[in-house]
């Protein structure tokens, strides 16, 4: 099956109303539903993301603040120590006592050291760095100069504050000596005034365990699997639920491994101390998340709180699933309702269309569906009922009228047949007369017309011939024609000229001619011995003379007025002599005014032309050919007037049949 693009609407076009309605309503309601659903999803996501941003921001800030508070307390203690060292004089014993007490009195400090530049504490000591730390509830002393082989000066915790001349937090590190716990060291440089010059003396440090930090960050649970993590100033992962990352990876090495330039950029912003809310792919599994990051200002670390996107939208997706289910169920219900409703409508429509078919087939007695409602279908049904009754009544009347009309028509037909029957139909009419030959034909139009022709001998040698066309059509014309013909026959007596004949006929016809009917007549009397023709033309189409071996000429002469139109008309008689072989061609306007489909007439010119081609042909053939020409000219256009032709050939008195 070839389903071209054009065939789809075509398919729909031929489907039932119920189908179309279901398709239309289901599709449009599904579309509306989808639009609403998408908007709802989008809007609620936006809302959630906005809330999440606030939430994440608060969480990140509060966590950063808690860290900051603890770090600051350590900073305070350490800075106070530096301040004491800068502003007091002390001997070794006092110094150690001071350091020990400080470590003991500050539970958040794991260990603390006062480290000196070479010979700064004692001119004999190239390195002096006492360090007190807690172990098993006791405070112990270690000499860092021994541990670092007199070269702690290039350690980060010493060198960086020295070179920067300001306190710094170290990068977090694992301290093997303290049981492999994560530590960070706060180092404060201290100085001494030597002859007005501020001279660098050494660095005071305080070590803090970051175990509490790890616990604090790990205890943050967001949604189902969201979490918080902390990176150092270098981007090194300090806390993360995945232990393998801690101190092994930086946010940048993760970005490098993943080829994630965006993550690197986020990492750079984090270590620059910026805050922000960004889409983020989680470090371990690369899940799409939202992250809020904010710095821990004193140490330059950064905290990130991570909200997995799918968990954020889980509830909406859940809700949307339910809404989709409800929507589909609703649309299905709607379809069922549409089906039921349209069924009741279409059932009536189908019944009516069947009834209409049967009515069309003529069965007017069928039972129409009853009018059930006042809606459009009900109105249509009522109209059908009315139509059926009206049709029935109309057909009854029509049957009566038709019967009457048919009776009249058949009577008319009979009259017409009688009418035609009185015209001479037998050819040759006078088989024993060889001096002339005559042939006539009449092709009646559908409606009875008033054409007629006639010929008869007045005496032994005089042949009277007539061709006529009564005005109008139908019964009046037929009757008028019969009357005219009767008068002509009655009045044509030996010795009368055609003019006189028609004058008399006119007088007779004018009597009581209230209907103002008239007739055109061409009437001639042929002397069969000489070929002389006396004739008169009462408004009839002029005949033609086909001269033997010569040309065709129109038999001109005064056309006079029609017969029956006006009283006291004196018709003149004309004379012409035919030579043996000459043919007289008479016709009615049914020939020249025959119309084709372009409403063109056959015309005299065409008739003359055709006759030229038929010169010297037998007269019957001339008539047949001209009839053919006229019929083919009309080209199927129905004949509106009788077509009548009469042709007479004079052969001469001494003509003998061979």
């Amino acid at each position: 099956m070839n389903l071209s693009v054009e065939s789809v609407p075509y398919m729909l076009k031929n489907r039932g109303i119920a189908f179309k309605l279901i398709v239309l309503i289901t599709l449009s309601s599904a579309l509306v539903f989808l639009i609403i659903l998408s908007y709802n999803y989008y809007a609620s996501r936006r809302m959630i993301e906005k809330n999440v941003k606030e939430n994440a921001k608060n969480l990140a800030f509060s966590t950063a603040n808690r860290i900051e508070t603890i770090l600051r307390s350590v900073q305070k203690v350490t800075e106070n120590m530096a301040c004491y060292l800068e502003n007091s004089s002390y001997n070794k014993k006092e110094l150690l006592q001071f350091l020990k007490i400080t470590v003991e009195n500050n539970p958040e400090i794991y260990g603390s050291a006062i480290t000196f530049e070479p010979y700064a504490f004692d001119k004999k000591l190239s390195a002096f760095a006492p360090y007190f730390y807690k172990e098993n509830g006791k405070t112990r002393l270690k000499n860092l100069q021994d541990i670092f082989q007199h070269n702690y000066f290039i350690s980060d915790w010493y060198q960086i504050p020295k070179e920067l001349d300001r306190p710094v937090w170290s990068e977090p590190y694992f301290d093997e000596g303290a049981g492999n716990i994560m530590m960070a060291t706060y180092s404060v440089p201290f100085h001494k005034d030597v002859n007005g010059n501020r001279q660098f003396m050494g660095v005071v440090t305080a070590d803090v365990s970051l175990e509490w930090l790890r616990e604090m960050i790990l205890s943050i649970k967001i949604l189902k699997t969201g979490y918080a993590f902390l990176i150092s100033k270098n981007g090194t992962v300090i806390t993360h639920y995945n232990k393998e990352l801690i101190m092994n990876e930086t946010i940048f090495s993760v970005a490098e491994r993943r080829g994630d330039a965006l993550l690197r950029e986020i990492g750079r912003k984090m270590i620059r101390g910026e805050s922000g809310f960004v889409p983020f792919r989680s470090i371990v599994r690369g899940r799409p998340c939202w992250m809020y990051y904010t710095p821990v200002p004193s140490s330059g670390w950064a905290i990130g709180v991570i909200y997995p996107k799918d968990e954020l939208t889980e509830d909406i997706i859940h809700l949307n699933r339910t809404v989709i289910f409800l929507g589909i169920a609703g649309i299905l219900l709607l379809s069922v309702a549409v089906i039921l409703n349209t069924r009741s409508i279409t059932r009536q429509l189908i019944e009516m269309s069947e009834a209409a078919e049967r009515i069309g087939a003529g069965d007017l007695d069928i039972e129409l569906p009853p009018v059930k409602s006042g809606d459009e279908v009900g109105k249509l049904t009522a109209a059908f009922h009315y139509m059926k009754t009206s049709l029935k009544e109309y057909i009854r009347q029509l049957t009566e009228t038709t019967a009457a009309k048919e009776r009249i028509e058949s009577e008319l037909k009979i009259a017409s047949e009688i009418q035609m029957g009185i015209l001479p139909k037998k050819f040759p009419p006078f088989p024993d007369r060889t001096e002339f030959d005559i042939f006539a034909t009449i092709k009646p139009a559908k409606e009875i017309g008033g054409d007629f022709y006639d010929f008869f001998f007045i005496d032994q040698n005089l042949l009277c011939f007539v061709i006529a066309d009564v005005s109008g059509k139908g019964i009046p014309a037929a009757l008028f024609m019969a009357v005219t013909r009767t008068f002509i026959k009655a009045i044509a007596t030996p010795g009368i000229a055609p003019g006189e004949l028609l004058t008399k006929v006119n007088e007779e016809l004018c009597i009581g001619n209230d209907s103002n009917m008239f007739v055109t007549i061409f009437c001639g009397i042929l002397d069969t011995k000489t070929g002389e023709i006396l004739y008169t033309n009462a408004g009839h189409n002029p005949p033609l003379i086909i001269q033997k071996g010569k040309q065709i000429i129109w038999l001109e002469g005064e056309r006079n007025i029609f017969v029956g139109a006006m009283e006291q008309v004196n018709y003149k008689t004309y004379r012409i002599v035919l030579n043996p072989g000459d043919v007289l061609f008479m016709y009615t306007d049914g020939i020249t005014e025959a119309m084709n489909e372009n409403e063109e007439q056959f015309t005299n010119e065409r008739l003359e032309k055709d006759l030229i081609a038929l010169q010297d042909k037998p007269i019957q053939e001339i008539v047949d050919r001209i009839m053919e020409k006229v019929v083919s000219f009309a080209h199927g256009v129905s004949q509106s007037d009788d077509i009548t032709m009469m042709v007479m050939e004079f052969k001469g008195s001494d003509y003998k049949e061979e």
Partner: protein
Amino acid sequence: MFNFMIFPCLGENLKKVTFIPQWSPQAQFAGYYVAYEKGIYKKYGIDLNILKGGPDSSSVEFLEKGKADFATMWLSTAIQKRSKGVKLINIGQIIQRSALILVAKKSTGIHKPEDINGKKVGLWGDEFQIQPNAFFKKYDLKVKVIPQSFSVNLFLRDGVDVASAMWYNEYHTIINSGINPEELITFFFYDHGLNFPEDGIYALENNFKKDPSLSCAFVKASIEGWQYAFAHPDEALDIVLKYMTIAKIPANRAHQKWMLEKTKDLISPQDNKTFIGILLKADFLRVAKELKENGFIKEIPEFESFCRECSVHAEK
């Protein structure tokens, strides 16, 4: 297992040998660990024991005291030792290009060598200072030298303007601490006529003389290990990371990957005309000359006695 099947009868004939790289396990030594793991040493008839190098175990000392049969060290270190009478010889020069560089942040206004004048420069000790000092002399720079530890934090915190870095190591650490390459300017000593080939394989001369083919088999196997590592970087990284984990060293795959890639460039530079493992006399003389001029050595050792062309012996 693989090698056991191919050389089932060699097991008893393997010669026991110890080797120490000059630092703890990392991709800088990938070739040796890979050759070991893939049984390449066994293929060459060597039953190898790789010792853990690092800050507490000097490879030079191990070699000198006979605790190791083979060791890697820098060419400059080896020349100094040789000139001080330690009879060690170079049997294979692995790293042809100097990976030591100076690095600075462009934000400090340093774009060319001359810009370093007057700046604080972090330098490591001993032979790590030879090239920088020659560089400063070449460009007539007066700098304030700050001793540099093995961390780059001082540089990251702007405690120094210029830092020493190994291209395959510290440079990448800096990148992975959030500074972008385009924010940095690097000075490769190679580009300034101061190329010092670095890691080479060394043995004591006496040991070599006893069994030259053993030494050369070791070198050949090591080179084959390197070639295998370069052809199979992921597998090589797995091996290196395994040894780092065993040595309890923080292992970062991205970092080791970088290190392996850069080591490859240093071992077989793209424009290099020599073969892997060959020490060029010109390189030797350049290093020795700088050492002498900087007072690290008094006499330049004879190249021919310092270096053995091992490819000759290994065929045996």
